[in-house]
Structures are given as C-alpha cells and as structure tokens.
C-alpha cells in the first residue's frame, strides 16, 4: 500500500465507524417517533440519540469520507503522491481527537444540544472544543490538497486542471469560506460561555454565525458527490461524460453562491432585517440552477452509455445501464431521490412558504433526501470501489452491496415522504412526545409516524449491509492487485475552452465579496441593537 493510500484509508475507517454508530442512533429515533414502547425510551435517550445521529452522520461521516476522497482523487488525477503527508497525518490526528471528544461528550449525555447546537442549549466544553478540533483538522487536509495542486500547477503550467481536482478544490474553497462562520461562533461565543468565562450568550448572533456555516455545509457534502457523479459514474455506466465545461461551470457556481444563503434558515428569526433575508432567498433560488445542470449532464452521460451499448429509442438506453452494479445504482437512485429533495428545497427557501413547513417534520424529510441520500448513498456506492482500491482486497459480501442501495431507496421514500406529509399537517420536528395530551390534530400524525418507522427499519437494514460489506472487505477480503479506478473521459476533451473556469483565484475573490455583502452589514446591524443575552440551558 502506498503511504497516502494509508492516510485515505484511515479517514475512510473513521467515516465508516461514525456511520455505523449513527445508524444505530437513527433506528432508536425512528421507532421512538412511532411512539413504540421501547426499552430505554426516555426523553434523555431520545435527545442524546438525535444529537449523536446528527453530529456523527452529518459532520463526522461526511467530513472524513470527503477527506479520504480528496486524497484519493488528487493522487489518482495527478499520478503523484500528495505533498506534506506529515501535515495530512497530523490533521487526521487532530480531527480524530476532536471527534472522540465531541462524540464522547454526546454519548455520556453531556451534550444533548442537537446537531445545530443552538444556544441557549448548553453543552459540556469538550463538545465545542472537540467540534472545533475537527474543523481545524479539516483545514490541515485543505492545506495539503491546495499545496499539492500548487506544486502540480507549477510543474504543469499549460495543463488543464483535472476535473476531479477542480471539483475537490471547489469543495475546499466552499468549506474554508463556510467554516469562518462556525469558527467565529465557537471561539468567540460558545467555548468562552461553556467554560464559564461569560455568563450570557447572544442566541441570534450565534444562529447567524451557525448558518453562515450550516447551509454551505450542504454544498460541502454535495460537491464531492457531484465529483463522483461527473468523474466516475459515466465510466461505471459504460459511457462518457457528456460535457466537461458544464461540470466546471457547476463547480464554479457553487463556489460563488454557496455561502451567502444562510438566512433562508432564519426566515422566522427576529434580529435579521427582511431585506437581507430576501437577498439570501434570492441566492438560494439561484443555486438550484447548478443542480439542474448536473441532472441534465449526468442523465445525458447515462444516455450516451446506453447508446454505446446499442440503444436507439427514446428511453431504451435506460435498460442498458448496469443496475446491478452498486457503484452505478447508488448514484442513479440517489439522483431520483434528489429530484424530490430539490423540489422540497425550493419550498423551504421560498420566503412565504417557509412558514408552512418551518420546524416541522417536513424539514427532516427534506434533508434525508439531500444529505441523507444524494450524498450518503453516493458515498456508500463509491465505497464499494474505494475500499478495495485502498486496501488491495476483493469486495466481499457482494450480494449485500447489490441490494443495499435499493433498500436505502425504499426506506428513504417511506421515511421522507411520510415526514413531508406529517410536516404539512403541522407535526413539529425534534419533539420526543408529540401526543399533546391526545389532541385530535396529533392523532392525525400517527399513521405517518408509523410509515416513517417502517422506512427507518429499511434504512437500518441497508446501513447494516453497508457496514458488513465494509468490514468484510477491509478486514477479510482476499488480498490481490485491484483494478484501478479510472476517471470518465468527456465526449469532447475540454482543450482550452472556457479556461476562466479554472481560475480559482477569480471565483474565490467573487465569493468573498458576496459573503461580505451578505453578512457584514446584517451582523453590524444586529450588534447595534439592544441585546440581552441568555443563560445556558441543559434540560436533558
């Protein structure tokens, strides 16, 4: 095994471990929401499991998987080892230490503050310090990849940046811009407050800084999934990428538009002027466009694959696609689910209609379609290629790998559609006991929560399949040289077309201007208001 593969593999193992623990926590929640009389079912256990599931799945699993992917793709695309591997290992150690601190605090019941850690809910300082270390570790990873890119660029000044690296650079730029917000929240507000240096905290300011980070976090999850869709899946399908410049345009649009969007999560909040909310809503609606472009380009790439295999009609190419290969089916099914998620997102981010679904079960239904499927299912499907490539072992339990994406698809349809519907009926999210003394309205939600629980069982079964395949392959797969993972070729090489799309300095500068425009004045305006602050609460 080459040394940087060891680094990518270490990151992948942390991701798989976090995913497995988080899945068990999810089962607890799904059954609990169905009001089943489970052993250990208490409010404290419920909120602990909600927090652990959110943090381990949405932050730890995704971040470590993306770091593994970044190392692997960069090395494959450049045909060289990464620079400053030692920094990569130190960063991995810092991020892992932070993860252990934060998840330890959660599992000990000292940090049931949910994945958004909104104050005045207050956690043990270990949680905030651990989460900060995870972010710091990811900055080290970002540096390693940027440094590797710069060295390659110096040696290859005339070469086009490989598409996979272009996408990973976009991921890193979005991440660095986003994490400024959460770093400010942690260092200036949460950590001093949790350590007792300050008595009160400003919840609105904390929420503004959290959502500076929280929504671009969505694109930090999504862009690497798109990198897989653009650079791997067309090849897996047996075809070619329909358009390389369109893919680059998509990544650039994410760099520019990902961050100035956070206030669409705060449309019900006081303390933010309506003008700024509208500005963020406008940017959020714009960012639907690159996902539409992606849907077109990837489906067209699938059509190319089908036509190369002999299809001639309008839709017969669909039959020619490799539906039995989980590296393909996971992406195709993820795209179908994401089509619904995109529609729901356009409702969440509509200024008026947000009130209809705000803080209801609709929201958890929505983000399980996006991060929970478009991203997570793509990552799982690619893991069936990545784990053998990194370990040099055969994929084991292949049948489980084949059925796993379909189980996830079924489970997520049941889970998410039922949550969308109960959300529209007014069922709140993140509530342990929602019977409200047997009120008539609450009774209407019960069929939906039951279907949601059945979906949760499907999802848990799928997660167990994934964990079993990963453990079986990584620990017990037959060792032998594995087939290289090749990138998809575009139908037409990009040549020197639209070279401006490769100029990350320009797009980063535009993005920084937009972030300042979106956040500087609202924060200044907020700081000029009379603020009272809040003392901490730790109810569970």
């Amino acid at each position, binding site marked *: 095994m080459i040394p940087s593969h060891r680094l990518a593999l270490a990151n992948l193992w942390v991701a798989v471990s976090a995913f497995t623990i988080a899945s068990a926590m999810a089962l607890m929640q799904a059954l609990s929401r169905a009001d089943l009389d489970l052993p250990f079912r208490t409010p404290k256990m419920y909120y602990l499991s909600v927090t652990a599931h959110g943090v381990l799945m949405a932050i730890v699993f995704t971040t470590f998987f993306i770091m593994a992917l970044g190392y692997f793709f960069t090395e494959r695309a450049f045909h060289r080892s990464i620079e400053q591997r030692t920094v990569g290992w130190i960063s991995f150690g810092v991020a892992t230490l932070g993860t252990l601190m934060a998840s330890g605090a959660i599992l000990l019941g000292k940090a049931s503050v949910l994945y958004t850690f909104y104050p005045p809910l207050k956690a043990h300082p270990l949680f905030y310090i651990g989460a900060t270390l995870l972010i710091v570790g990811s900055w080290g990873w970002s540096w390693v990849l940027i440094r590797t890119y710069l060295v390659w660029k110096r040696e290859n000044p005339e070469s086009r940046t490989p598409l996979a690296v272009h996408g990973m650079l976009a991921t890193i730029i979005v991440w660095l811009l986003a994490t400024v917000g959460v770093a400010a929240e942690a260092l200036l507000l949460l950590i001093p407050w949790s350590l007792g240096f300050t008595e009160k905290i400003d919840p609105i300011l904390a929420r503004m800084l959290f959502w500076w980070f929280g929504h671009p976090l969505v694109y930090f999850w999504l862009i690497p999934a798109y990198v897989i869709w653009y650079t791997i899946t067309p*090849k*897996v*399908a*047996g*075809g*070619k990428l*329909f358009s390389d410049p369109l893919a680059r345009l998509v990544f650039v649009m994410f760099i520019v538009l990902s961050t100035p969007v956070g206030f669409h999560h705060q449309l019900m909040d006081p303390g933010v002027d309506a003008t700024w909310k509208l500005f963020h809503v406008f940017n959020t609606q714009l960012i639907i466009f690159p996902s*539409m472009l992606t*849907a*077109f380009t990837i*489906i*067209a790439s*699938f*059509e*190319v694959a089908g*036509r*190369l*295999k*002999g299809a001639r*009609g*309008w*839709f017969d*190419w*669909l039959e*020619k696609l*490799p539906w*039995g*290969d*989980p*590296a*393909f089916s996971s992406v195709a099914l993820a795209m179908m689910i994401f*089509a619904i998620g*995109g*529609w729901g997102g*356009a*409702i969440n981010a509509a200024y*008026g*209609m947000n*009130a*209809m679904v705000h803080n209801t079960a609709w929201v958890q239904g929505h983000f399980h379609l996006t991060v929970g499927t478009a991203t997570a299912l793509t990552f799982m499907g690619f893991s069936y290629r990545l784990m053998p490539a990194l370990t040099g072992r055969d994929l084991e339990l*292949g049948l489980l790998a084949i059925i796993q994406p379909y189980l996830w698809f079924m489970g997520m349809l049941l889970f998410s559609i039922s949550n969308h519907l109960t959300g*529209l009926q007014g069922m709140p999210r993140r509530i342990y006991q929602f019977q409200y003394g047997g009120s008539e309205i609450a009774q209407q939600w019960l069929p939906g929560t039951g279907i949601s629980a059945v979906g949760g069982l499907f999802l848990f079964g799928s997660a167990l399949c994934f964990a079993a395949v990963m453990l079986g392959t990584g620990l017990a797969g037959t060792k032998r040289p594995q087939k290289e993972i090749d990138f998809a070729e575009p*139908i*037409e090489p990009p040549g020197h077309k639209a070279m401006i799309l490769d100029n990350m300095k320009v797009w980063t500068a535009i993005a920084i201007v937009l972030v300042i425009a979106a956040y500087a004045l609202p924060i200044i305006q907020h700081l000029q208001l009379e603020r009272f602050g809040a003392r901490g609460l730790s109810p569970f």
Partner: protein
Amino acid sequence: MSDDRVESSEPVEIGSHPKGTLAIVAVYGALFLLAWLVLYFFVFVPRGTLTP
C-alpha cells in the same frame, strides 16, 4: 461489476442531442413547477400568510 462493452457494431453518434434526457428533464421541470404551484395555491394560500 460494470459492463463497459460496446454491443452495437453500428457507428454511434454520441455527441448528438440526448433526446431521452431532454424529455426526462422537461417532464421533471414541469412536475417540479406544477407540484410547487399546487402546494402554493392549495395549501399555503388557503392557510394565509403570517401577517394580514
């Protein structure tokens, strides 16, 4: 597990208009808009806005 074989011996014009894709994307776009408007007119508007 992937199938990279090219089964047809006829020349394939892979850079031509992807008619199936255009149809799928058009249908999706129409459904997207229709479902959004259904929710707007039949759920959101009857409930009324937060402020009169």
